[in-house]
C-alpha cells in the first residue's frame, strides 16, 4: 500500500489502530469458529470421571485414549472409515476418467446432436436429488442394489456438473494442440490421454477434491440405501453414536474426531488447491 510522506502521525496511528482492530476482530470470530473443534478435541480425551462430573471444565485433567480404543473395540468405526474410503475412491476414480472424456468430446469434437445432448445433460442439474429419493429407492430395489454401495457410486460416476466443469476447462486448451495430435496420427483416445489429460491437472484436482469430499460427507443417500451396519459409511456411524453410546459424550466426540481429523489434515496440507477448487464450484470467471 502506498503511503504519502505528507500523511501525518495521526494517520499512521489510525492506520495502526485499524490493523490492531482487524486482528482483534478476526481472532474473536476465529475463536468462535474454532470452539466446536476445541470442544470436540478436549471432550474426546476426557476419562469417564470427568465426563460424569456435574461441573464443567474447559480443559482435560487426565487425558486418556480410552474413548478411541473403546470405539475401535466396539467395531464399526474402522470398518466405516474403510467403507467411506472405498466408496469415495471408486467414485472419484470414475469421475476423473469419465467427466473429462465427455467434457473433451463436448468441447472439441463436432458431431450431430452435440448441443442438444449437452443441454439435455445440463437440464438434469436442475432436478434436486431430493426429488429422486423415493423413485431412486424403488429403482435400486428393482435392480437389487439396495444395501449395496452401487447406488452411492454408479449414478455419480459421470455427473452433469463434472462434465460441465470439464468442458469449460478443456475448451480453453488451444485447438492447435489437438490438431497437432491428429497430424501425428494419434487416435482420439491417445489425444485424450497424452494431450488433454496432462494439461488438465488443475481440472482433475478440482474435480477430484469436490467428488471425494462430497462422497466422504454425504448422508441422506446412504441413510436410505444402506441397511447393514457393516456397510455403513462414516457419517451414518457418526450419527448413530448418540444412540449407540448414550451418555458417553467422550466416545461420541472421538467418533466425530475420527471423521473430521483426516479431512482437516488434508485440508491443511492441500489448502491452496482446495480453496481454488471450492471457489470453482461457485464462480464462473
Amino acid at each position, binding site marked *: *500500500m502506498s503511503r504519502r510522506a505528507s500523511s501525518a502521525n495521526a494517520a499512521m496511528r489510525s492506520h495502526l489502530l485499524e490493523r490492531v482492530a*482487524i486482528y482483534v*476482530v*478476526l481472532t474473536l*470470530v*476465529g475463536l*468462535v*469458529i474454532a*470452539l466446536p473443534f476445541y*470442544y470436540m478435541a478436549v*471432550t474426546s480425551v476426557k476419562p469417564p470421571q470427568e465426563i460424569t462430573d*456435574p461441573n464443567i471444565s474447559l480443559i482435560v485433567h487426565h487425558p486418556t485414549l480410552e474413548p478411541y480404543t473403546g470405539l475401535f473395540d466396539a467395531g464399526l468405526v474402522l470398518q466405516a472409515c474403510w467403507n467411506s474410503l472405498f466408496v469415495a475412491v471408486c467414485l472419484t476414480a470414475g469421475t476423473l476418467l469419465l467427466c473429462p*472424456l465427455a467434457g473433451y468430446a*463436448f468441447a472439441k*469434437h463436432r458431431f*450431430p446432436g452435440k448441443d442438444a445432448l449437452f443441454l*439435455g445433460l445440463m437440464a438434469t442439474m436442475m432436478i*434436486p*436429488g*431430493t*426429488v*429422486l*429419493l*423415493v*423413485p*431412486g*429407492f*424403488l*429403482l435400486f430395489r428393482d435392480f437389487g442394489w439396495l*444395501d449395496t454401495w452401487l447406488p452411492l457410486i454408479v*449414478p455419480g*460416476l459421470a455427473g452433469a456438473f*463434472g462434465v460441465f466443469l470439464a468442458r469449460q476447462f478443456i475448451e480453453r486448451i488451444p485447438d492447435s494442440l489437438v490438431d497437432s495430435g491428429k497430424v501425428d496420427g494419434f487416435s*482420439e483416445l491417445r489425444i485424450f490421454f497424452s494431450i488433454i489429460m496432462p494439461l488438465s491437472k488443475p481440472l482433475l484436482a478440482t474435480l477430484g477434491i469436490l467428488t471425494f469430499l462430497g462422497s*466422504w*460427507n454425504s*448422508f*441422506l443417500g446412504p*441413510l436410505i440405501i444402506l441397511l*447393514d*451396519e*457393516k456397510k455403513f459409511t462414516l*457419517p*451414518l456411524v*457418526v*450419527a448413530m*453414536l*448418540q*444412540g*449407540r453410546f448414550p451418555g458417553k*459424550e467422550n466416545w461420541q466426540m472421538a*467418533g466425530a474426531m475420527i*471423521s473430521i481429523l483426516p*479431512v*482437516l489434515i488434508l485440508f*491443511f496440507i492441500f*489448502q491452496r488447491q482446495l480453496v481454488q477448487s*471450492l471457489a470453482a464450484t*461457485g*464462480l464462473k470467471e
Partner: protein
Amino acid sequence: MPSTRFRIWVLLLLALSPVLALGRTLHFWAVTGSVLDVKMYRQIARDFTKQTGIDVEVTPLAWGNFATKYFAAMAAGLPPDIGVTNLGGPFDYGSVGGIVDLRSEFPNEIGRLESQFDPAVLKMFTIKNKLFGIPSDLSTLVMYYRTDTFQKLGLKPPQTWSELNAVIGALEAHGYRYYFGFTSGAQWALGIYTMPFGLPGFAFDTGGAPVVNWVNPKYQAGVLEALNLWHMHDSPGQDLGSRVQGMFRSDDPGTAVPLMLDIHTDYSQLPISVPEINGKWDVAPWPKADDGRPYNVMGGTSYVIFRQSTMKREAFRWLEYLNSLEVQRYIVLDHLNRADESSFTISPVKAMWAPSNDSFWARPELKSVRRLHDVLAKVVPTFSSVPSIHGSTEAARLESDLLDQMGSFIRDGIDEMAHKRGISRWQLVQDFGAGKFASEREAFEQSIRERLRAGYAAITPQAQDLLTTETARYDSHYGRIIGRLPELERQRNVLNVVELIAAAILLAALATVCSFRRTRKHLISYGFVAAPLILALTFVFVPAVVALYLSFTEYHPVLPLSTASWVGLKNYSDVIHSGDLAQALYKTTKYAVITVPIGIFLSLILAFLLNSNLRGERFWRFVYFSPMVTSVVSIALIFSQLFLDAKQGWLNALLLKLGLITDPVPFLKSDRTFLECVMVLAIWQGLAFTILVFLAGLQQIPAALFEAAAVDGAGPVKRFWNVAVPGLRPQVLFISVLGIIGAYQVFETIYTLANKSGDAGARFGPNDSALTMVPLIYHTGFETFEMGKSSAIAYILFILILGLTVVQFFFYRRKEA
C-alpha cells in the same frame, strides 16, 4: 460354445445344491443400543447351533431409525428371517403384510408359546385375532432415591401420585432437584398416566369401532400429571447422560438429584459406577394413581418373523429357544455381567417370575439386583398393554405436537412469573415447593388445564377421522391385497414399463448412431459422451418420471408396485389441505430468509477483514475455511453437546456466566429454540464457503480502487460500503440464490440435532419445529412410507427450486448481456 470345464462346474454346482441348501443360515436382526447385546445373542446362537444344527447370523440395528430400516428391507425383499423390533413393530409391519401371523403360520405350536406370556401383554400384538409378534423384553419406570437425603428431610418413598408431588415439593423447598430421564415428554409413554383409569388414547368401542379418548376429563387429568412432572419443576432432562450419576452422588443443593425417575435398566450399574454411595440409596416402584388401578408397562421389544423368509420353521424354533427358561436366565445373567453397562432385564416369560424360579433369583451373583427384583416382582403382574389401531401412528403425532406446545407454554409461564418477581426460574420452583404463591400457582394450573382442554378439543376430530378412515382403508384395501401378495408380486409394474422405455430409447439411440453414415463416423465421440448420458437417463430421467407417476398414486413400498392405486390429485390436495406443506414451507422460508442474509452480511465483513494483507494468511484461511470441508453430521453432533439443556452445556454455561440468562435455556428441547439452533449451526458452517467466494471476488477488484478511496480519506467503513460491497454484487447475488436453494434442502443438521438416529420416538425437533421440506419428504416417504404423498411434496419442492434456478439464470444472462 460352453467349454467342457464350464459344464463340469455347472454339474458340480447342481450336485452340491442340496448340501448348500442344508447349510443355510438363519438371519436375525436385533434392535439394540448396545454392542454387548449383539455379543450375547451371538453366544446364545452358538448354543442353539450346537443343539439344532441351524446357524444363526446376528446383525445389530440401531434404535432410532430401525423402523425405516425394517421397512426398507421388507420393501427390498431383503428382510431377515426373524428380528427384534419395538413393541409397536408387529402391528405396523403386520398391517402391510411384511410379517407372518404366528397363529395361522404355526397353528400347532403357537399355543404352547403363547401360554408362556400374560394375555394382557400380547394384546398389543394382536389385530383381528392375528398374532404378529411376541414380547422380547419389557421395561418400566421406577424411582431411585437417596435414603440418607430422604431421611434427613423426613420423607418417605411416595406410593401415590399425590405423595410423589408432595415429596418433590419438599425436595425443592430444600434446594434439591429431581431427575426425570427416559419417557419425559414422550407421547407414547402417556399410557402410564391414563391407563390407571382404563383409558388408552385410542380404543375400540363396544361395537368394534375405533374411538379417541382425548376429550375425556379423566384422560386429561392423567396427562396433566405427566405435564406437571415433565415441565413444572425445572428438573434436568435425559440428555445429561452419564452426568446424572454424578448428580445423584452429589449432596450439593442446586446440583444434587436425590430422586431419579427413570427406566429400570439404567442404574443397575450404580453400585459399580458410584460405589461411594452404596447403602445410601434404594429403589421403589413407580407410584400408582391415587384413584386408579396400578398400570405399568411402558416399553420394550418384540420378536417378529418375516413373510419373505424361506426359513420360517427354523425361525420359530429359534423363537422358542430364546423364550426357554434356560435362555431367559442366561439373558438376565449376561446383562448383569457388563461392568459399567450392566442392567436388569425384565423377562416377559411368566415362569421367570413364578415361585418355582425363586432358587434362580437366590443365586449369589444376583445379589446386587435382588432389591430391584423384589420391587419389579410386584410390578410385573400389573403389566398390560394398549390396543393397536390403524391410523394411530399419525394421530399420535397430533398429540405429540400438543404435548410439546404445552411444554413450551408451561415453561414460558413459569419464566414469566419468575421474571415478574425478578427471580430465577429455579428460585420460583423452590418457592412453589415451599408452598409460597399458592394462589398464583393455582391460577396458572387452571390456565394449563384450560389450554390442554382446548388443545385436545381442537385435534380430536382430526384424530378420530384418521382412525376411522385408516381402519376402513385397511379393511377394504390392504386386507384384500395382503391375501394375494404372492400373485401380485409376479405382476409387471410401472417401474418395469419405464425401464423398458428407457432401454428402448438407448437401443434406438444406438441404432440411429450406427445406421446413418453421418453419425457413424462420429462413433468415437458418441462413445466418449455415452457414460454421462446413459447415467442421466437411468438415474435421473427414469426416476423423475416414476416420481411424477407415483405422486398421483397411493403406494406402500412393502407391497408390490402393482398395488399402487391411482388417486389423481389427491396427494397434492391432501398435503395442501392438511397444512403440512404450508407449515414446512413457512419453516423452510423462515430458515432461508434468516440464515442467508445474516451469513452474507457476516461473510462480507469477514472477507473484507481477511483481505487486508494479513500476517500468517495461511493460518487465518485454515481457521476460517475449516468448517467447509468437515462433515455436517459430525459438526451437528458437536453442536448437540454444546447446546446441552443444562448448566453443563458449554453455551448455557457461557450465557449464565455472562449474566445474559438466569436459568439454562432448553435449546434443543423446546420448539421455541430448536429451529434457531439449526440456524446458528447453518450460519457457522456456511460462513466458510461464502467468505471464500467473497475473498475471490475482492481479489478481482483492482487494488487501485481501494487505494484511491484511502487517499480520498475514506476510512475502513467507507471503503467497505463504497468499494468492497458494490464490487461484490455478482458474488452476493450468486451466494443468495445458491444459499436459498441450499436452505430449501436442509436435512442432515436437523436429523442429527433431533437425535433421530438415537431416539426411537424422535421427530424433527420438538413439536416438529424443524419439519422443513426435505425432512417432510423423508418423513412421508421413509417413516410413514406414503411414497405417493412424498413424491408429490418432492415435486412441489422441485418446482420451487426450478423457479429459483430460472431466476438465477435470468440474472446471469442479464449480467453477461
